[in-house]
């Protein structure tokens, strides 16, 4: 059994991945609890000053947190052409079913 590798710098990413061994759903669940806590405790009423550009961007790949190992703070995005649903999304229901009736 094996895990996917992140390419160059994968050892760093793997180390981070092991440290943050949370799934996307768990992270969202945690974030939701945090938001709920903030809303109910009145903290949300305080205007927040968010930096114009954060030092890190959280994104997900294979349902796990993804950290850009280059330091450029880019979120993970599929390589060009890898958004396989982009072209089917522009089709009508009939065109979709003609392509694959059991989608």
């Amino acid at each position, binding site marked *: 059994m094996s895990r996917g590798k992140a390419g160059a710098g994968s050892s760093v990413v793997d180390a981070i991945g092991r440290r943050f061994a949370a799934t996307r759903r768990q992270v969202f669940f945690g974030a939701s609890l945090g938001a709920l806590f903030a809303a109910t405790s009145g903290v949300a009423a305080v205007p927040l000053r968010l930096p114009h550009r954060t030092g890190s961007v959280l994104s997900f790949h294979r349902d796990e947190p993804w950290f850009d190992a280059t330091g450029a703070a880019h979120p993970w995005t*599929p390589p060009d052409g890898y*958004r*396989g*649903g982009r072209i*089917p999304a522009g089709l009508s229901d*009939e*065109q979709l079913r003609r*392509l694959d009736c*059991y*989608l």
Partner: protein
Amino acid sequence: MVDFSSDAARRGFFSPQRYDAELLDCEVEGTLPADLQGTFVRLGGEWFYPPSRPDDAILHADGYISTFRFRDGRVAFKGKYVRTPRFKANLKAGRQLFGYYRNRFTDDPSVQGIDGTVSNTTPLVHAGKLFALKEDSLPHEIDPVTLDTIGPWDFHGKYRSQTFSAHPKIDPATGEMICYGNEATGPASKDVFVYAVDRSGQVTREARFQVPYVSIMHDIALTEKHIIFPFAGYVTSMERLREGRIHWGWDRTKESYIGIMPRDGDGRDVRWFRGPERCMMHTFNAQTVGDKVVLYAPFYDSNFFPFFPNVDGSPWDPSRAKAYVRRLTFDLNSRRDTWEEEILFPTPIGDLGRIDPRYLTRTNRYCYTGFSDPTRPFDETRGGNLRGRVTNSYARFDLQANRMDRYFAGDTHSLQECCFIPRSADAPEGDGYLIGIASNYAEMRSELVIVDAQRMGEGDIARVIMPFRAGPQVHGIWVRHDELAPFPKVEMVDS
């Protein structure tokens, strides 16, 4: 030269792949259950050469058989095109020689004498043989070790229909297979031939009858006493074929028909019942209860296939291509020639319905199928806007408790047909796994999900991560390792 560029829709996730492939030890997320020992066999269609008619049916794409073999917590994948005579003729010519779906008048003259089947619908294991099935020709036998195509099989010359079925039924109590051929004596013929084949593969009985009108008879249902033959709506004729049109059209004025024949009867014993417009493709299960026959089926309200056009010229209506879990009750003691129909759950579903195969012909509690759950998210940024348009969930319908359980595959995924695997030969009904291919639109690849069928809401327990797309599937089956010698052969495991 192979050129798919004229079809702009066949890009992205639906771009052609055209490969035979083998993955010796697949990547897995989660833990494969130790008791999952056997092979998940899939059959579907993938164009090897572009269709000669751009509006041809996807059901006419070349058959592709693939397997996931599970052993000791590991899994290997293997996939091959079914080498039908048609596939080989096209490969020799380097282009598509065949015309519209099941219309030989539209084929290139050079292939008029060649079997035109694509063998792309259902895998079957019976009497120690593996087959690829499609309802327009005989079964094609597949070598389970290599997945090479051996050729058509006529049951020692005793099977006389020109066509077979995509959905023969195997009685779990006896191993007897009930199979049939629709349009048995040629295209647009009203003849149906029905056969019983014993567990050793010998034809033991034949019955023949004619249908009220020629239509698709894609699936049947089997009880301990009866065989049930549904058909509806789709029409064809030799005139239609000579005019160069696709084999089937949809005539909404046609009544639906269901024939019921005693398993020990012959063609004269078929009793026909009639009903309103329906599209009857697949069944879940059926039982004979006293003088009544009860059929559970995921029938559609109307035409499901846009590539089989309405004969009145009206456009295909997706709002009427909706299927539901239905119960049809037939009173064999009544003189009425119709049935009582109930929709048991209001949720629209996909019609690729499955049950625990050990309960075929008997009263079963659970039915499984895929459906589109509009309440679940779809990540448009990563997967394209397919929200509500793809099968993102599996459902288990509890017919006793009137309850629906759900499994959600993910926010960039759609699911192909599921298959239920009993945990063991003597496990209670419903104790086992659901298995099926998920298409990951964001990452342009497929994942095989394994779900505990009693804990669907908890998500999958393992995913086999494929580095490429597994290709479209119509139907799949689970073959236990003790049912047929473990197959296919895997390097290092079997050498």
